[in-house]
């Protein structure tokens, strides 16, 4: 494992691919490699790309990566696709849309299935991003379907989160419901050559004015009159507010990609300019540590419990002799050392 890590740092793409598999498979010993590599991370700029199926995320990642390559940046891509809950299998088809990047030594594309466990995916994705970071890619793009909590969490664990929308996928209320607007640093309306794109942009902007925390301190337009919004804003954040821009693109035609790149650069500059970057990283690390602590404690607890304890209590709960939380209390009491 340590040898693989050293080969990765030396630029061996095979070693990177192997370590990505070991991370996914939770292979024993991979922690040591990750520990060695951690000192080499923190240099890549990480952009999360999320949105509903069919909005054109993969095409957008393809176009973005091409544009970044054109200005000399190397790009690592992690494309996460869902695992079938019935068979455990998955079809990972993001490479189909990334043909333009094939054969470029400055690009590395890895497809990842969500597999079973919720916590496992978040951990594997974070570690996979670190591997790409340690391998020296300037930019790491993480693409996930914005359909589940864990996928959205992955897209959030980035410096800049890009939420992709497309015309005709439901009204503005859908956008609020999905909770996607709050996490966006940059909003993209892709397929902007389709009818309805202008309406989608207008709806998103209206929602941002109303809903985005950063916009609350602004004057809002109400029945044609500008009114100050009342929500209090804490002083530090007030110094420099980031209001997510809405960018229109046609990814398959490379339209609007320059503007999108400019918006990403602007967000990066905004983060770097103040305390925002450090704060964002600290918050993300705190979330990660909490996740890892929970996973580790759970694994330890499950290993320490008598093998049949859980099944026996499940039967009691099923028979309505015990409520679920009561059963958990008993499990906790049965743990050694408590």
């Amino acid at each position, binding site marked *: 494992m340590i040898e693989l890590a050293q080969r990765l740092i030396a630029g061996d793409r095979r070693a990177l691919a192997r370590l990505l*598999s070991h991370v996914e498979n939770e292979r024993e010993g991979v922690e040591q490699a990750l520990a060695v590599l951690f000192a080499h991370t923190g240099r890549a700029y990480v952009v999360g790309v999320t949105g509903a199926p069919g909005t054109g995320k993969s095409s957008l990642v393809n176009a973005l990566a091409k544009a970044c390559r054109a200005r000399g940046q190397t790009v690592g891509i992690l494309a996460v696709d869902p695992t079938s809950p019935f068979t*455990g*299998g998955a079809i990972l088809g993001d490479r189909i849309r990334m*043909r333009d990047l094939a*054969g470029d030594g400055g690009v590395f594309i890895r497809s990842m299935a969500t597999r079973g466990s919720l916590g496992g995916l978040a951990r594997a994705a974070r570690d996979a991003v670190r591997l790409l970071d340690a391998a020296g890619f300037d930019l790491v793009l993480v693409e996930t379907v914005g359909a589940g909590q864990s996928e959205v969490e992955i897209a959030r664990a980035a410096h800049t989160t890009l939420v992709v929308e497309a015309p005709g996928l439901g009204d503005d209320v859908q956008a609020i419901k999905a909770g996607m607007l709050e996490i966006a640093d940059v909003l993209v309306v892709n397929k902007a050559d389709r009818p309805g794109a202008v309406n989608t942009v207008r709806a998103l902007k209206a929602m941002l004015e109303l809903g985005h925390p950063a916009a609350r301190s602004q004057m809002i337009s109400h029945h044609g009159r500008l009114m100050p919004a009342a929500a209090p804003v804490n002083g530090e954040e007030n110094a420099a507010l980031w209001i997510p821009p809405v960018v229109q693109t046609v990814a398959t035609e490379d339209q609007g990609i320059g503007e999108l790149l400019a918006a990403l650069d602007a967000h990066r500059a905004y983060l770097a300019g103040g305390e925002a970057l450090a704060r964002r990283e600290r918050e993300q690390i705190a979330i990660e540590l909490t996740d890892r602590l929970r996973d580790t404690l759970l694994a330890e607890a499950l290993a320490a419990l008598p093998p049949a304890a859980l099944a026996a209590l499940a039967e009691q709960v099923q028979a309505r002799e015990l409520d679920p939380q009561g059963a958990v209390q008993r499990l906790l009491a049965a743990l050694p050392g408590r």
Partner: protein
Amino acid sequence: MSNRAIRVLIAKPGLDGHDRGAKVIARALRDAGMEVIYTGLRQTPEMIAEAALQEDVDVVGLSILSGAHMALVPRVRQMLNQNGLEDVPLVVGGIIPDDDHAPLMALGVSAIFGPGASTEDIAAHIRSLVEARAGGEMA
């Protein structure tokens, strides 16, 4: 190793645009619990070998209906080897005349599946390839 899934690359090299077969296989392997990386049409051998490396797949499956298999398959094998993937088995599907089976197998193709092959057989073959390889790794 609790989370291990078999990863298969399904690729269509060359210029024919008939991808129904590749998609049927991709779906069947997914339903057999495998992770299928599908690259789409018109892949060069270089693109396939690079994708196999980046995705760290256990098996590469090629679908060829153009008749160019005697040119494409050796080239893919050569490119895979060049990427250090000598031990990654190659499986071929599509329209392959009987006379070409032996020469292809001699090139290191582990199986050839034509029209009418059952998807269960294909999945079972891939599983056995992966198990054989895993056994070798442990030794």
